[in-house]
């Protein structure tokens, strides 16, 4: 896959990632992304037919061991006041944010 990333794609991806690039940031970002993605296209030289993806090294089996589960039991969490102390805007119960929906 050596398709060049377009400005439209960068803007769409930025939207997905909730990143708003300033107009002067778009060009350089596009350049870096294309250079990096071109380099990553080298992976296509490898035949990986039938190879299972390795998302977690614990999947390697005997070498590392199995993942560990625990009983699904609720535990006390953080004290609300402590958490709200770090909040940018709060009524001490909820996190206050700008409106979500236009009336």
């Amino acid at each position: 896959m050596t398709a060049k990333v377009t400005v439209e794609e960068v803007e769409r991806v930025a939207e997905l990632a909730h990143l708003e690039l300033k107009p002067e940031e778009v060009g350089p970002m596009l350049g870096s992304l294309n250079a990096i993605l071109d380099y990553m296209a080298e992976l296509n030289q490898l035949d990986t037919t039938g190879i299972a993806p390795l998302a977690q090294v614990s999947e390697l089996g005997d070498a590392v061991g199995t993942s560990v589960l625990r009983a699904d039991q609720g535990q006390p969490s953080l004290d609300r006041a402590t958490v709200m102390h770090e909040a940018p805007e709060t009524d001490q119960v909820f996190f206050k944010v700008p409106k979500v929906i236009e009336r």
Partner: protein
Amino acid sequence: MAGENKTVGTYIQKPRTLAAVRAEILSGNTKATDLANTYYERIGQINPRLNVYLSLTRDRALVQASRVDDAAKKGDPLPPLAGIPIGIKDVLVMKGAPATAGSKILEGYHPPYDATAVAKLETAGAVLLGKLNCDEFAMGSSNENSAYGPVRNPVDTERVPGGSSGGSAAAVAANMAMATLGSDTGGSIRQPASFCGVVGVLPTYGRVSRYGLIAFASSLDRVGPFAAYVRDAASLLSVIAGHDPKDATSSPASVPDFAALSDEPVEGLRIGVPAEYFAEGLDAEVRTAIEKGIAALEAAGCKVKPVSLPSTRYAVPTYYLVATAEASANLARFDGVRYGYRSPESETLSAMYNHSRDEGFGAEVKRRILLGTYALSAGYYDAYYLKAQQVRRLLAEEYLRAFAEVDAIVTPTSPIPAFKLGEKSGDPLAMYLADIYTVTASLAGICGVNVPCGATGSGLPVGMQVLAAHMNEGTAFRVARAVEAAEL
């Protein structure tokens, strides 16, 4: 040049061993509070130049030190790290202390809890001095991506300390702490350790709890220690390792006495040298220094043999696809809602997210989030992310096969020694390519140690990377001790 020579070596100071300091505290010859204050004085003198610490946790440190002094005075048994001054990378949380992760988006944030590794150090009696500078969200190989200014390498202050745990490595090299904690996702402990001439440990994935580590890439991140001596690094690992119910990827494997394991002689150990790590791109002086290290291992009775890791050249693109994809998910939580920076005067929630993130994140972080989001997006997921995870399995299996033939694998940690500030920051891809020797171990989940292994002609430290199979840190420490003993 006279001006240049003035900075070389000025800040370098080797800490004493844990054993030496422990003996003095036990006997009462040294008070932990005096020791802590001595470190704070040194920090006060040289931190303005080196920019190693972002914040100090003096009150907490002195309370702990007093506790140690009281216990010592009464003749109570002292825990293994009693009174030892240790610095903590700013991606690990300490309750009530700032945790910036080197980013503006967490400026002013004070976490309400301790990381497990931090808590374990404190239970062991360690005196936690403060939070160490690092690349933003642990993304970088030079500590130039910190929103709070770069760290300067104590060996030569015009050069980078490496990254992302640049502050952690520099602190030990300049004796601004006897030991530190850092994190390693693609080389962020090993590489700065090699640039600064100190010991850095990459524990097996799952060996040390990630609870309280601000996440970059969850399937790759590891917490690990830096120290001036291999035996001390091994002791530290025994303290911070162990199963943690708060980290679902934490291994239930028992934790041995790594320091004791490191004492064992290396005679008869089989050492693998992969040709792929000694090919083009390797600086000639680094090569020479590593070859001397390998010769030292042979002299100590090791059997050195070639091994093959043919997929090595695919490791960097694989790593940057996996890591950035995971980072794009992990960094989605920084949205201005619950903590950290919130952009003022946004009309809608969506605008608040966008502005807070655009203003709070640096360029490299944004680049990686975009790359990761792209690699995961519809239409590209198979070609990029899935493909990378398949190559990851190939790389991991190559290591498993190699470790069937050898006990440890040794390589240079970095193809180049510490470069000058600004030299590589204009070319992100060039910076990524310098990670070539460290990312494979990251992807495979295996463990390793960077041990100082001589220097270039101009005195820049060279580091040898000693890799071992999963859960075999003891073997890596043992081999590293032999290299250290050669005093190259």
